[in-house]
């Protein structure tokens, strides 16, 4: 059972900051990873804080995220160091981090996961445009519904905007203005909430109504995107058309939080065709488009991560050719994950499907 506490009469950012400050200053954790504005840019970047006094610019609720911070979180939790870390992450970042734990890329030992309700993020340039007009985008965003329409396409179809698996979840959805609900998700979380000395509260009834409405809205959007995308990629020809402008820059791979290989197979010479092969092919067909492995690259990445794709949308955000990479990935991932009844990031104990052999798979029956 969760324990609840409520902070009233403070903006969510202030409330979160107060809580994190307390964690650090009371030595309840040794360091905090949280998004913070830098002196150089309004865009909040994942930042590791060891001193409470340095936390002025933190902005975890900003509707921007130039990274899926699971990668950075995994970097600081790659091995247990004996120090206790608090990681403040969005729901999609937590899900990606859990996938990375399953893949042995980091550990949750001595890690406190702090999750926040996520209303979505904007593309960087959209955020920066609003920032230059409004100054404090975060607090405007929390109350202004028209700003909330400016989030990325992938965020608009995300139904998992509440943090699951966090030790402490901070919620603003369905709360009165300037109120934040803290909920424990584990014994660790419960103990920490006690230490923070917040006033206990109940889970407000209206929260469920608000989240349900939002979820329905998102589901409708998702249905639309899936239908549209399925139609666009249902043959190899159409798929190739979809990725026709790909530059093989590999940005999508770089931005993907669950693409974890130390050295990507596309950096090796495995798929590099020999010159004589290319020439012969050109002779035979008249022409060969280069590079030849563009389709292979996307299909390989699909087959490698479709089961673990958490739908964060970063791949689309970083594509210089504006290919809706995330549409493709989320559409395919939804089908793969449904086939295996697998939800990435649902449970650290849940094995990744291709590593187990279920009876049903054997007989080829659908689930």
């Amino acid at each position, binding site marked *: 059972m969760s324990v609840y506490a409520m902070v009233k009469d403070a903006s969510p950012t202030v409330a979160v900051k107060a809580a994190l400050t307390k964690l650090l200053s009371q030595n309840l954790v040794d360091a905090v990873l949280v998004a913070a504005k830098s002196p150089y840019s309004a865009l909040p970047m994942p930042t590791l804080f060891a001193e409470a006094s340095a936390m002025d610019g933190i902005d975890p609720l900003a509707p921007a995220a130039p990274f899926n911070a699971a990668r950075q979180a995994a970097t600081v939790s790659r091995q247990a160091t004996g120090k206790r870390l608090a990681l403040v992450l969005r729901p999609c970042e937590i899900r990606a981090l859990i996938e990375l734990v399953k*893949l*042995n*890329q980091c550990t949750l030992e001595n890690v406190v996961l702090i999750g926040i309700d996520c209303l979505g993020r904007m593309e960087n340039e959209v955020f920066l445009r609003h920032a230059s007009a409004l100054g404090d985008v975060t607090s405007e965003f929390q109350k202004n519904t028209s700003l909330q329409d400016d989030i990325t396409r992938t965020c608009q179809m995300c139904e998992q905007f509440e943090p699951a698996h966090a030790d402490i979840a901070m919620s603003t959805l369905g709360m009165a203005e300037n109120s934040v609900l803290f909920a424990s998700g584990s014994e660790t979380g419960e103990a920490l909430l006690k230490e923070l000395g917040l006033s206990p509260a109940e889970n407000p009834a209206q929260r469920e109504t608000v989240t349900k409405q939002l979820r329905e809205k998102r589901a409708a959007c998702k249905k639309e995107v899936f239908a549209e995308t399925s139609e666009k990629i249902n043959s190899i020809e159409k798929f190739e058309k979809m990725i026709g402008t790909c530059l093989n820059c590999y940005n999508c791979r770089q931005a993907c939080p669950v693409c*974890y*290989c*130390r*050295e*990507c*197979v596309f950096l*090796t*010479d*495995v*798929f590099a*065709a020999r010159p*004589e*092969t290319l020439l*012969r*092919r050109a002779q*035979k067909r008249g022409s060969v488009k280069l590079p030849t492995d563009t389709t292979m690259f996307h299909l390989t990445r699909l087959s*490698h*991560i479709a089961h673990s794709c958490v739908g964060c949308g970063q791949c689309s955000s970083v594509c210089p050719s504006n290919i809706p990479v995330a549409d493709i990935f989320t559409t395919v991932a939804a089908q793969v994950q449904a086939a295996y009844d697998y939800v990435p990031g649902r449970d650290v104990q849940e*094995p*990744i499907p*291709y*590593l*187990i052999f279920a009876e049903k798979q054997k007989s080829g029956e659908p689930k």
Partner: protein
Amino acid sequence: MTTQNKPKIGVYICHCGMNIAPKVDVEEVARYIQELDHVTVARDYKFMCSNPGQDMIINDIKELGLNRVVVASCSPRMHEKTFRNAVRTAGLNPYYFQMANIREQVSWVTKDSQEATEKAKSMVAAAVARVFFHQPLDTREVTVAKSVLVIGGGIAGMQAALTSANAGYQVSLVEREPSIGGHMAKFDKTFPTLDCAACIMTPKMVDVLQHPGITLYTWSEVEKVEGFIGNFEVTVKKKPRYVDEKKCTGCGTCMQKCPTKKILSEFNEGLSFRTAIYTPFPQAVPNVPVIDATHCRVLGQNKKCGVCAKFCETKAIDFDQKPEFVTLKIGAIITATGFQAVNPTSLEQYGYGRFPEVYTSMEFERLNNATGPTSGKVLMKNGMVPKRVAIIHCVGSRDTRHKKYCSRVCCMYSMKFAHLLREKTGAEVWEFYIDIRSPGKLYEEFYNRVQEEGVRFIRGRVAEITDMVEDPGDEGRLTVIAESTLTRRTVRVPVDMVVLSVGLEPARGSEDIGRLLGLSRDGDGWFNELHAKLAPLATPINGIFLAGCCQGPKDIPDTVAQAMGAAGEAIALLAKGIVTTQAEISRIDPDLCSGCKSCIESCTYSAIRFDEARKVAVVNEALCMGCGSCAAACPSSAAGVKHFTDKQVMGEIEALLM
């Protein structure tokens, strides 16, 4: 030979007599291939696998300085070994060789000749592209443990154990029941010669017990199997017997005195009772009882009893016995886990379980057996001799709702029953069959003999067995209803007794054994042999062989022949004393490995371990079977299979897509 050398590839296209050449223009293929890069020579020949064919390759290697060879002919399964040997003979590493299958994959399956020629061209070109990337590989030789494990102590397992032990090898025979003997021990006579099963069986059981080369583990189960061909490490669990095998003299006093007497006898198919301490049958081997822990008053019900211990003169009863685990070093494994009879309860219309006079064939075997519940007299439950008996064929067999296959033995044993019934009781016997299947030496003759004896054969699968009677005079009898398809009449035959000739299915627990050994099973649950025709006793797992019904239904002569054959395979392996490890195994590049352990999870042979210091996965070459699961699981291509490297496979695909 150096790998730095520029590739010089020789390509040989086989006519395969009339198999390839009439469909594929082999000369045209040779002309085309000759023009490809790195191809030094391309030739065609009538039979590449023949001596002159092989010599052609050897000479070219020597004279033209070839360092890669491609043969386009049949399937690698057929002749890859042959050509690798030829390449080796010429002094080249045998893995500088690639085969293109233009027979099964081209000439046999392609209608149009031109299309076939084009297809052959691309397949050979693909092989050329692949062999370009080949690397020399080495095999290692490992010594073989001179011991055989036989799983299952029925007639198949016993025979396999005896043959192997007679050849001088150490045999461990594991049987889960208290005694060896299996199903055959339950039979009275055997078709078609009507030998007494016990007369031919019990001496073998004693031989097994007394053979110095055989260690018998009854009331035991295989718990764990690790290792690989020649070097298996097997853990056997000896279940507690609660009787000390060394002290017990087999006097039987304990069984006489045991007060828990009303337990249905498994050996007698529930037609009689046994005590809680028991041997399944008087001729059991070893003649040492076990205590049935669920029914024993001391073990199962925590009551004071201990009568058996009180009367045992040698103090052999030990209620504190615990399971024991024995670890064995094994060179070859013979699986002989057998079958079980299909339970006909779900064939509702036959009333098994509802009508007391409906028996399964296994029950009838016991009813008819001199050591059975009626001392071999065929009697109904009311003690009377039946006057008319119906025998129903194909119960549960040839039925897509149950077992779609023919169980092979039922026709013959049904006719054996008919003969015995005629002989013992003089009863009128009606056999209801779909087709009589008697393909065996003296089998058809036996059919004729039973016909001569006046058995009524009705061709028609029985629709229903009912106790509803048409004629009041038949009160208390059962009526068998079927269409006599040869006369197109519905016959209703009132009978006193019905025998259901039930089919065979894999023994309970064979799935678990299959999992322990890594054996695959077919859709019906029988173990898969390596090749249906050419390797019927081998399995896809090297060093594990099959004997008897675990591979599919078969009768005693076939079972014994197969058991001897499986033993022969095992002996051949052990006699040679060494096995060559495979070269096509996995390797993991530590520089590319992310340490995610996906490969470890996916390896079914437990051949990959994790190096905690370097945080990378490492392959144990002795255990790896080269299946490639790790390569498929690894996202960063750190894991790969030698001789199936990404470059080789991609090269092949590239050429095919050209």
